C-alpha cells in the first residue's frame, strides 16, 4: 500500500487522539486496574503502660528496662543531602513505657568507642528521635526536609551535651579568639551559650537546615556508655501531654504516633547531616 498524504494525516490523527485518550484514561485511573496494595510493614514500638517513673539523676539502669520488650529498628545511610554519612550504625534497639503523666523512650546501639568530646576533627556520639507534628506525613522519613509547614519535633541527645549537663565538665578546649574585642560592649563572635537545661535538645524543624531550638525545653534524658558491651544506652523522658501543640509532639494512652530515629557515630566522622536514619516507626501507646 502506498503511503499518501491523506493516509499519513489519518494515521496521525487517529494515533494522536488514541494517545490523548490513553493519557486521559491513565490520569483518571492513576493506578490502572484497582490493585490491593499491601500496607507498608513498619516496625512498631509499643509504649507499655507502667505505674513507675524513673529518676534520671540516678543514671540509666538496665534493670528498669529488663521487663520491657525491645524493637530493633534498622538504620540506613543518610543520603538525601550533603554531607552524606560515611559510616553506618546498622540498627538501634528501642523500648518505651509511659505512666499517667510521662513518656519514656530507651534507645541502645552498638558503638565500640565513647565519644563525649569536641575538638578539631573530633565529634561526639548522638541519637535523636523525630516526631511529625502533622498526621498526614509523607510515607518515608528520607524526605525530612519536606514534612510540610507543621514540621517535626526532634529530641536530640548528644554525648557531649550529656557530659556537660550531668557531669558539669567541659567537652572542648576553652580557647576563644576575640571573645570580647577591645572597646566593644558585646561579643563580636558569639561563643557563649545559655545554661543547659537538659542533656537533650528539644528542637523543631520544617526542612533541612531549619533545625531550631524551641523556646521551652521539655525533654530530659541521660545516656551511659557500657564499655564491657560496647553499647550506648540513652533514655528520653517527656511529659505525656504537649505544652504547645504547634511545637510539641502530642501523645496519649491508647493513641498511635509515627516516629523516626537517627544516630551518629562521632569517631566515624558523623555530625550534622552525617548520620544513620530510620524509616518511620509506629509508636503505639498500650
Amino acid at each position, binding site marked *: 500500500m502506498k503511503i499518501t498524504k491523506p493516509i499519513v494525516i489519518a494515521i496521525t490523527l487517529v494515533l494522536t487522539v488514541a494517545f490523548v485518550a490513553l493519557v486521559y484514561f491513565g490520569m483518571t485511573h492513576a493506578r490502572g486496574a484497582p490493585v490491593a496494595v499491601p500496607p507498608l510493614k513498619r516496625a512498631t514500638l509499643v509504649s507499655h503502660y507502667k505505674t513507675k517513673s524513673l529518676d534520671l539523676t540516678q543514671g540509666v539502669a538496665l534493670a528498669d528496662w529488663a521487663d520491657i520488650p525491645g524493637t530493633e529498628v534498622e538504620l540506613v545511610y543518610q543520603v538525601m543531602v550533603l554531607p552524606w554519612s560515611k559510616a553506618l550504625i546498622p540498627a538501634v534497639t528501642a523500648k518505651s513505657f509511659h505512666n499517667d503523666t510521662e513518656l519514656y523512650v530507651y534507645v541502645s546501639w552498638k558503638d565500640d568507642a565513647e565519644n563525649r568530646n569536641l575538638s578539631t576533627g573530633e565529634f561526639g556520639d548522638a541519637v535523636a528521635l523525630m516526631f511529625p507534628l502533622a498526621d498526614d506525613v509523607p510515607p518515608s522519613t528520607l524526605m525530612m526536609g*519536606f514534612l510540610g509547614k507543621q514540621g517535626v519535633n526532634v529530641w536530640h541527645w548528644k554525648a557531649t551535651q550529656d557530659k556537660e549537663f550531668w557531669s558539669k565538665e567541659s567537652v572542648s578546649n576553652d580557647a576563644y579568639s576575640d571573645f570580647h574585642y577591645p572597646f566593644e560592649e558585646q561579643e563580636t563572635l558569639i561563643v557563649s551559650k545559655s545554661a543547659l537545661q537538659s542533656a537533650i535538645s528539644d528542637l523543631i524543624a520544617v526542612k533541612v537546615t531549619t533545625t531550631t531550638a524551641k523556646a521551652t525545653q521539655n525533654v530530659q534524658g541521660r545516656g551511659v556508655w557500657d564499655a564491657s558491651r560496647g553499647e550506648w544506652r540513652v533514655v528520653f523522658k517527656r511529659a505525656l501531654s504537649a505544652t504547645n501543640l504547634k511545637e510539641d509532639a502530642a501523645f496519649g494512652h491508647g493513641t498511635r504516633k509515627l516516629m523516626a530515629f537517627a544516630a551518629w557515630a562521632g569517631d566515624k566522622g558523623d555530625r550534622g547531616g552525617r548520620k544513620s536514619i530510620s524509616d518511620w516507626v509506629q509508636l503505639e501507646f498500650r
Partner: protein
Amino acid sequence: MIETKDKLFGVVDLNARFELTKFKPVRAILKSRWMPLLPILLNLFIFVIILLAAFTGGYSAGNYNFGIMIVWILWWVLLMMMLVPGLSRAWCMMCPFPIFSDWAQRTKLFDVKTGKLGGLNFKWPKKLSNMWVMNIAFLVTTFFSGFMTVMPFATFILLGIIILGAFIVGLVFEKRTFCLYLCPVSGFQGLYSQFATVEVRRKDWDICKNHNPKTCFVGNENGYGCPWLRTPFDFQKNTYCGMCLECLKTCPYDNMAINLRPPGVDLLVETKREPKGLDEAWKAFIMLGIAIVFYLAFQGPWGFFKDMVRGATLPGYLGYIAFHATFNLLIIPGVFFVFAYLSKRLSGNTDVSLKTIFTNFAYTLIPMGLGVWMGFSVGILLPNGSYILRVLSDPFAWGWNLFGTAQIPWTPVLTGVMGYLQGAILIVFFAFAVGYGWLLAKQIYADAKQAKRGFVPILTFLTLITLVFLWLFVG
C-alpha cells in the same frame, strides 16, 4: 580518518586504531540482518514492560516502579557511564522507538526492500539540519524532570510522545529524520559520542573513491543506504552516525570498519561536511548547565529549589523554568564567551574570529560535561541501584517475586566514598578537557606562543567548573 601529528598529553597517538571487525566472526555477526534487529526486539520487549509499568504505576512512588527505575536509574546510568563514552551511539543502534517508522517505510522488518522507501519522504529543512531543535527539545524535556523521575505516569507520557513522534515523523520525512534532528536523547549522545572510544569508519579511501555507485549511501540488496543520511565513505565524526551497521552490510569490499580508538579524537576534527558549529557548542553548554541544575535539584541540600523543580507551587515552578532556561541558554554561554574573549585578547591574534575561538573551545566542554554527567550518574546509581533488584522481580508492583528479589530493602552502596569517586572521575575528565583544550588551542592559533597565551583563560574556565563540581560532589 584524518591524520594528526598531535599527541594527547604528549604521549597518546591519536591516529592509533584497532579494528574490531578484522575478526571474521565479529564482521559476520555485524553483517547479519539479525544485527541490530535482535537487540532492538529485546529492547522493544523491555520498553513494553516499562510503558505498562509506567502507565499502571500512575502517580505512585517512583522508587518502586519498573518504568522509573529502569529508565532513569539503569538506562540513564548505562548511557552516560558506558554506552556513550565507550560505544558511541550504540544505544541508537538498538533503540526500539524507530522500529515502527522503519517498518512502515521499508514494509519489511528483516529483509531488504530495494528501490524507493515508503512514506512521504519529505526532506527536513536545511536550516534545521543541526542540533538546535534537539537542544530546545532536550531543555524543554528537563523542565519536567521533577515529575518524570518520580512519577511513573509522567515517564509514560514522555516515552509515548517520543514513540508517537518518531512514527509520525518517519511517515512524513525521509529515513531517520526524527533520530537525526528531533529526538531529545539523540543530541547529547551525538555530542558526547565524539569522545567515544569506538567509531564506524571507512578503511581505505582509494577503494571508496573508485567505487560507484556508493552503495553505503544508496543501498543495495544487502542493506539500506545510510538511514542517518550520512555519507559513510567519508564521514569523520561520530556525531550523527547512529551505528545502524547498514554500511557494513552494503559495502561489497568490506571497506567499512568498527575501530577502537583513543577517546575524544573527533574533538579535533573539522571538515567541510562536518564543521564545528554553534549548535553543538550550545549543546555542550546546555548539558553542562543541566548537570549543575540537576545536581542542585536532585542531590543538593536546598529544599526550596527541590520544591520549585517538583512544582510545589505554580510560581515556584515557573521560576524554575525561567531560571533553568536562562541559566543554560544565556548565562553559561555568556560566561564562556567572556573567557573566549579573554583568550583572543591574551593571544594577541587578530586573524581568528571570536566566533571561531568561542565555538572551537566549546568542544573542551564535551569531556568536561561527560565527566560531570558520569559523576552525577554515580550519585544516582549507588544510593538508588538496589531498587532495580526489587522492581525486576515485581515490575508492576502487583506482589510478584519473579527472581526472589522483591523484598530486598533499599540498600545504598558505597555512599561513604561516593563523593571521592565522583571527584576522581571529574579530575580524569578534566585532564582530558585540558589535554584536548591545548590541542584545540594549537589548531585555533597560528603559533605555539599565541596558543599558550590564548589557552590560559580556557584553562581557567575549565578549572573553575571542575572546582565548582568538586565542591558539589565532595562537599
